[in-house]
């Protein structure tokens, strides 16, 4: 992995972390943060600081350092959380988002640095007031002294606690945790502070005793103040399990030395540990005696064990204690290794470059095509064994395909989350009370689509807040609650993902939109019955400018851009609106851009694939169905529009003229027919994106290579629908005109 990849990983990770931070911060607007919330925010800042430190991103490190201090004080309750901190921390989060990206590109202006300082300045009062805010509890009677002096000479009985005698017992092993911590020398430059880890231990237990190891502090000429030379031996008492204690040190790098023995460890374990530590065994024995891990008796046993190991003769006590503590020791060796801790975390989630997943999906796609071909050949052989084997292979391949595709799928909720912030900020800016509701956050969608959906959704959400919702006064006057609602909903429907952006605002006035269309010379005539036809005007490029459209309906600012974006994703967009009740924008998007279940059809020598989830039924296109119109056919008493593929794409005819068949497809609640010559059945197919030259060809979403090497075009049903409708409309307008 080269540096670029590492930095990319840092960018992705930071983005995810900051998104989490924002989510928690937004939550703190309605209720005070819990300890878990504060820890989570702290972890975000801490992790980014650590990674930024590794790359030497000074601006990020120094900014996060101060933010982290504030968060550290908050999580240790040294200062109280004040609601106004939400705003400041949100600003800090935004600035951090900027810093992370800008510093990787080496583009930080002085303006931005000053802005960062101004945010830190806003934090200052909270840091400065902490002593006055925490001194609310009455001081215990025993401690009511003017001044207490302690030190190496004098001891004050109010402050000095006697050691816990239980720690001096050896039977059954040492009753507390022993934590041996030697931070990596570069720990400061990585933005980490060992004290914060140790301080955090106090939250889950009691530090019985701690010894700071200063053996490796160098002389004046070698002393680099940015290197860490300290180490720590900690006697720690806690009811928490080993995993919880390990979690305290989650962020420490793998190259730091960290060894945690849970209660019950033996003298032999200590000797093992002393072999791994840089200090002398005798020195360590004394340290452990000082921190009450060893007492006089066990200290001697420790020395004895060292001696035995050196001479190679095992002591009786060591054999006994080994057998006694066997389960514990093995347990330790499995769980206390820092690398292994990290390994456990790695196994739950791993980050993979999306290009690798694309490659995998591509290869699986090729495999699907080859297998389809093989299957066809096997089918011709009429060998039952071969056919059975082929079925098994196909089943397994389908499973692999499903898994491969799922690798790219992400819940839409991840991207929904950012709209909470947009809605919050817009609400403040516009002086409106707005509530954002999201539904179907768990709905999964191809990551590529999610990323490209970001801009259009932002546009629609902004529009809903800005123009869709009325001011609180007007809402109140209209008998609505003052707080307006914007809703983001996602769900699956017939192999598509539907995303709805709705509001409970004033709705869109069809009359006004139509009138505007006439004024702009786009349409003529009376208001049509079809509201879809009217709302389609909103997507017309240049139909609206902010000032004009705000006076008309409050909709349409830049909707043509939204439309184009959705179209480029092979999606479609529909608008529904009820006056004074609100508007709904429905985005229909394909589930994935990679592999689809298709229905293979042929017109002459050309092959086409229709996405299976849109196919309702297939019929012989008989005279019974035909009507006088060349645009509609009759099906069980209903008139359904249809088109002939050969009218849209040039198809080389075959010598034998087949009878016509019609494939009835649906999009949403609409049906239409596609007339073809041959129905070739279900076909699993890999979408190959169209080359840039053909990208703008309407009605085709991609191509696929068939088992026999021929190319089939994949029909983009929604776009074909639209094309049919627009042709129809044009005919109607020209007819009216």
């Amino acid at each position, binding site marked *: 992995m080269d540096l670029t990849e590492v930095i990319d990983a840092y960018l992705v990770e930071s983005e995810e972390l900051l998104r989490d931070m924002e989510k928690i911060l937004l939550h703190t607007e309605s209720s005070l943060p819990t300890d878990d919330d504060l820890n989570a925010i702290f972890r975000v800042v801490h992790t980014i600081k650590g990674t930024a430190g590794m790359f030497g991103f000074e601006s990020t*490190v*120094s900014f996060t*350092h101060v933010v982290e*201090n504030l968060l550290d004080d908050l999580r240790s309750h040294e200062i109280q959380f004040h609601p106004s901190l939400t705003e400041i921390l949100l600003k800090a989060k935004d600035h951090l988002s900027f810093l992370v990206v800008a510093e990787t590109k080496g583009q930080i202006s002085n303006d931005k640095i000053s802005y960062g300082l101004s945010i830190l300045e806003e934090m*200052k009062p909270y*840091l400065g007031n902490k*002593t006055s805010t925490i*001194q609310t*509890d009455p*001081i*215990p009677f025993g*401690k*009511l*002294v*003017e*001044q*207490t*002096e*302690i*030190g*190496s*000479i*004098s*001891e004050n009985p*109010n*402050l*000095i*606690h006697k050691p816990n005698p239980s720690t001096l017992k050896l039977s059954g092993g040492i009753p507390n945790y022993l934590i041996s911590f030697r*931070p990596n020398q570069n*720990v*400061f430059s990585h*933005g980490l*502070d*060992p*004290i*914060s880890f*140790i*301080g955090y231990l*106090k939250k889950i237990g009691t*530090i*019985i*005793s*701690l*010894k*700071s190891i*200063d053996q490796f*502090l160098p*002389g*004046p000429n070698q*002393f680099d*103040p*940015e290197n*860490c*030379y*300290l180490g*720590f031996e900690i006697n720690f008492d806690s009811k928490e399990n080993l995993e919880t204690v390990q979690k305290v040190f989650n962020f420490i790098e793998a190259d730091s030395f960290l060894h945690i023995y849970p209660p019950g460890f033996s003298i032999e374990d200590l000797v093992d540990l002393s072999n791994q530590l840089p200090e002398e065994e005798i020195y360590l024995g*004394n340290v452990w005696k*000082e*921190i009450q891990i060893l007492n006089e008796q066990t200290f001697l046993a420790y020395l004895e064990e060292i001696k035995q190991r050196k001479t190679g003769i095992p002591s009786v006590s060591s054999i006994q204690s080994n057998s006694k503590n066997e389960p514990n020791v093995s347990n330790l060796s499995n769980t206390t290794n820092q690398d292994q801790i990290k390994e456990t975390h790695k196994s739950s989630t791993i980050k993979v470059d999306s290009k690798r997943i694309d490659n995998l999906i591509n290869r699986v796609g090729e495999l699907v095509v080859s297998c389809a071909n093989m299957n066809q050949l096997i089918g011709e052989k009429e060998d039952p064994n071969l056919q059975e084997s082929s079925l098994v292979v196909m089943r397994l391949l389908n499973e692999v395909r499903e898994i491969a595709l799922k690798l790219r799928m992400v819940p839409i909720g991840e991207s929904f989350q950012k709209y909470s912030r947009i809605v919050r900020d817009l609400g403040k800016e516009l002086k409106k009370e707005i509530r954002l509701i999201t539904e179907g956050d768990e709905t999964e969608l191809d990551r590529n689509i999610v990323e490209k959906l970001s801009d259009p959704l932002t546009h629609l959400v902004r529009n809903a807040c800005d123009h869709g919702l009325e001011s609180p006064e007007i809402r109140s006057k209209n008998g609505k609650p003052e707080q307006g609602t914007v809703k983001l909903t996602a769900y699956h429907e017939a192999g598509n993902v539907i995303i709805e952006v709705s509001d409970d605002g004033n709705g869109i006035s069809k009359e006004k939109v139509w009138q505007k269309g006439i004024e702009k010379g786009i349409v003529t005539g009376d208001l049509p019955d079809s509201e879809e036809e009217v709302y389609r005007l909103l997507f017309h490029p240049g139909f609206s400018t902010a000032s004009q459209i705000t006076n008309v309906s409050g909709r349409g600012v830049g909707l043509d851009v939204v439309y184009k974006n959705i179209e480029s994703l092979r999606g479609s967009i529909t608008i529904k609106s009820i006056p004074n009740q609100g508007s709904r924008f429905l985005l229909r998007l394909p589930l994935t851009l990679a592999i689809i279940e298709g229905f293979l059809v042929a017109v002459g020598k050309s092959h086409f694939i229709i996405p299976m989830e849109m196919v309702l039924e297939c019929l012989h296109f008989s005279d019974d169905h035909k009507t006088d119109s060349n645009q509609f056919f009759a099906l069980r008493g209903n008139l359904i529009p249809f088109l002939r593929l050969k009218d849209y794409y040039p198809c080389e005819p075959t010598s034998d003229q087949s009878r016509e068949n019609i494939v009835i497809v649906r999009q949403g609640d609409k049906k239409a027919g596609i007339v073809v010559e041959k129905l070739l059945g279900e076909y699993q197919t890999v979408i190959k994106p169209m080359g840039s030259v053909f990208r703008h060809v309407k009605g085709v979403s991609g191509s696929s290579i068939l088992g026999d090497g021929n190319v089939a075009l994949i029909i983009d049903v929604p776009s074909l629908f639209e094309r049919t409708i627009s042709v129809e409309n044009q005919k109607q307008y020209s007819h009216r005109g």
Partner: protein
Amino acid sequence: MEQAQTIQTSKEGIEIHWSGYLTVPYIKEWLELSKLWELPKGKKTKLNLGAIERIDSSGIQLLMFLKKRCQTDQQILELHNHSLSVLKVLDLLGLVSFFGDRIKVKKEHSNEVEFRYGTRKVS
């Protein structure tokens, strides 16, 4: 916050007042200011930490380093008037006996430090 060092001389020696953050971003700056080992042997230096607003591991490490250097160079370094943030770190890391200074805890801070360990010299 501003990093500042002021030096007062008296018959006993010198007293240095430090104020601000004794933390990673400023630690090099502090080291530059700390020319304690350049003082003549036998000289007593009092380091007044009353205005240290925040101290981290690198800050405490610097103090430990200075203390050891002074001992090697036969100088006397005394830390005094410890601010609460300094006291908390000394308490947490069990470093009271390492520095061996008299420590004064203001009554309003007495429930914030415990000094459960690290207060006695180990032979």
